[in-house]
């Protein structure tokens, strides 16, 4: 198998995983207005669950890695458990972080959740083997006996199928009345509450769905790369997806897909082809610095992204007489509009 074929198929898998993250964050932030700066924690939790339920039980004191939830489950089950785990964790975190509070407080609290989660998993070794993490996660369906090239591309297609199925599902949800309600809540929380939307429930629903997708993306990733440790899910990883979303455009799925292609795939892969400079690891640091700069630049120059969300305001349309109801609806961010 040529190195290029291997490399490109790996990038396709990463694109699928990152697209899932982008879709989940766009639902949470772009639609529901929840600043989930702890997104990577949900992906990490899904990855740990999928890893532990594939690896089999850790056999007591002699085992070379320690973890909970150890089991030998057949192929699709670990992914499903990862999805459910992400959703359950989102339910727990959502309990306290989705309270009515200033959005900058909410962002800070979720960032803290991300920092503390990494600290706990690193320090509490019996949970998921501490800073060494879990390794040797078996490949799913290895019994089929596919050759390396066939396996690589099968997994790439598999991850794309999952990613686009979720993409289509979430886009459908966002275009539904439920999605309109989310945008109404995001833009005018008080007005949305006044027209009878249950703000707490709506926000929790979006958060839990996003958490489930996060868990799924983690499961998909860990079954491909076969290892997972706290180094893979530092708080900064969430920023890559946020930056992609800012670059592409908030509340807009095509924009997010474009951003995912531009930032985590093209932008972060280019350094692979540059000559090594400085000591090993310097390029990694520089990449993160560039992500931070890109993040600030996009907030400075184009807070609405490359492909801005279409405004859906039906005020004064000849078909809909301009009554108090439509005025309220338009205040609430375009109840009558459609998402792209």
């Amino acid at each position, binding site marked *: 198998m040529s190195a290029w074929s291997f490399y490109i198929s790996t990038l396709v898998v990463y694109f699928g995983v990152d697209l899932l993250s982008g879709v989940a964050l766009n639902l949470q932030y772009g639609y529901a207005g929840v600043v989930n700066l702890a997104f990577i924690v949900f992906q990490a939790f899904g990855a740990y669950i999928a890893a532990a339920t594939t690896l089999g039980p850790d056999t007591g004191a002699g085992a070379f890695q320690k973890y909970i939830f150890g089991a030998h489950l057949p192929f699709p089950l670990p992914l499903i458990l990862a999805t459910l785990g992400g959703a359950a964790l989102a339910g727990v975190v959502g309990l306290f972080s989705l309270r009515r509070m200033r959005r900058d*407080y909410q962002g*800070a*609290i979720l960032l803290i959740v991300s920092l503390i989660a990494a600290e706990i998993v690193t320090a509490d070794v019996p949970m998921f083997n501490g800073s060494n993490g879990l390794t040797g996660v078996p490949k799913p369906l290895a019994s089929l006996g596919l050759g390396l090239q066939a396996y690589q591309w099968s997994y790439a297609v598999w991850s794309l199928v999952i990613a686009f199925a979720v993409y289509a599902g979430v886009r459908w949800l966002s275009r539904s009345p439920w999605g309109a309600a989310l945008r109404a809540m995001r833009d005018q929380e008080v007005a949305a509450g006044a027209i009878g939307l249950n703000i707490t429930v709506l926000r929790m629903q979006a958060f839990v769905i996003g958490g489930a997708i996060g868990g799924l993306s983690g499961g998909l990733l860990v079954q491909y790369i076969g290892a997972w440790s706290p180094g893979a899910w530092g708080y900064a990883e969430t920023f890559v997806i946020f930056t992609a979303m800012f670059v592409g455009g908030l509340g807009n799925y095509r924009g997010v897909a474009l951003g995912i292609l531009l930032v985590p795939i093209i932008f972060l892969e280019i350094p692979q082809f540059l000559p090594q400079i400085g000591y090993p690891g310097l390029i990694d*640091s520089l990449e993160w*610095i560039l992500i931070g700069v890109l993040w600030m630049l996009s907030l*400075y120059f184009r807070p609405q992204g490359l492909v801005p969300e279409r405004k859906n305001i039906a005020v004064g349309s000849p078909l809909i007489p301009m009554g108090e109801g439509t005025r309220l609806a338009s205040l609430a961010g375009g109840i009558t509009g459609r998402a792209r």
Partner: protein
Amino acid sequence: MLSTLLSAVAFGVVLASIIAIAAMGFTIQFGLTNVLNLSYGGVMTIGGYVAYLAVAHGISAWYGLVLGAAAGAVATLVIGHGLLRRFAARGTKVFEMMMVTLGLGLVIDYTLQAISHNNISQFTVLQSAPLHLGPVTLTPTQVIITAVGLAIFIGLEALLRLTRIGKALRAMASDPSLARACGIKTSRIVVFTWLLSGALCGLAGVVYIINAQSIGYTTGELFLPLVIAAAILGGAGSPSGAILAALLMGIVTQVFSAYGNASYSTAAGFGILVIVLLTRPSAVLSKGENEELALS
């Protein structure tokens, strides 16, 4: 048994002093400018590194404190006055400003990672015989840290209550446009606040690494949860609130690690904020979302 508890409480007070120095700087700046400054952890690490380099080059740790505070003040002034003011001038709002400081924190952290080659440096300063205060054994360093925390609290309260600039600062924190109308030069107050908050931030970084005896590029970021939780819990702009919240968090954290699982001690401190959010959400609703930034 009792002596374990007393020791844990004493360590908690030491930790609380470090949290409080940082949280007071954070809350003063937050209360005045309304910027939830998440680059604060990065600036703490900058202060720590400056002091570490000074000590490594044979300069006394006392000068290290001063140098760390100065580095923090300069860095924060550049961030606040040089950068965030430009964002505000372009119409960046309260929430987006927090996102800007988050990106900035990322840049600072990874610049430090690049400079430090991702090493964690160990060192010891101010080591001498431990003091026995009844059942509690503390190092002189820990006593000094607590004294520094207390001195800063008293100094800050005196500054805010007794001096002209302190009164102007409080006036501006409660109503910037009214303060401006009364002839207070608000842009000077903002510059002063960035400097003050930055100095406390840098100082907290130095004190933290002296206590922990190691420094790495994530040092400030890992300490930030307790600082922000204390500042939010104590109420924006209130040094005494920050002190009380810091005491609560410091003691709970240390008692938890004495009796429970030390891996979860930071989480236990943060747990207090979670409990408050669940039971009294109005405690963190002190200011409205549409509040304006006050950066000039």
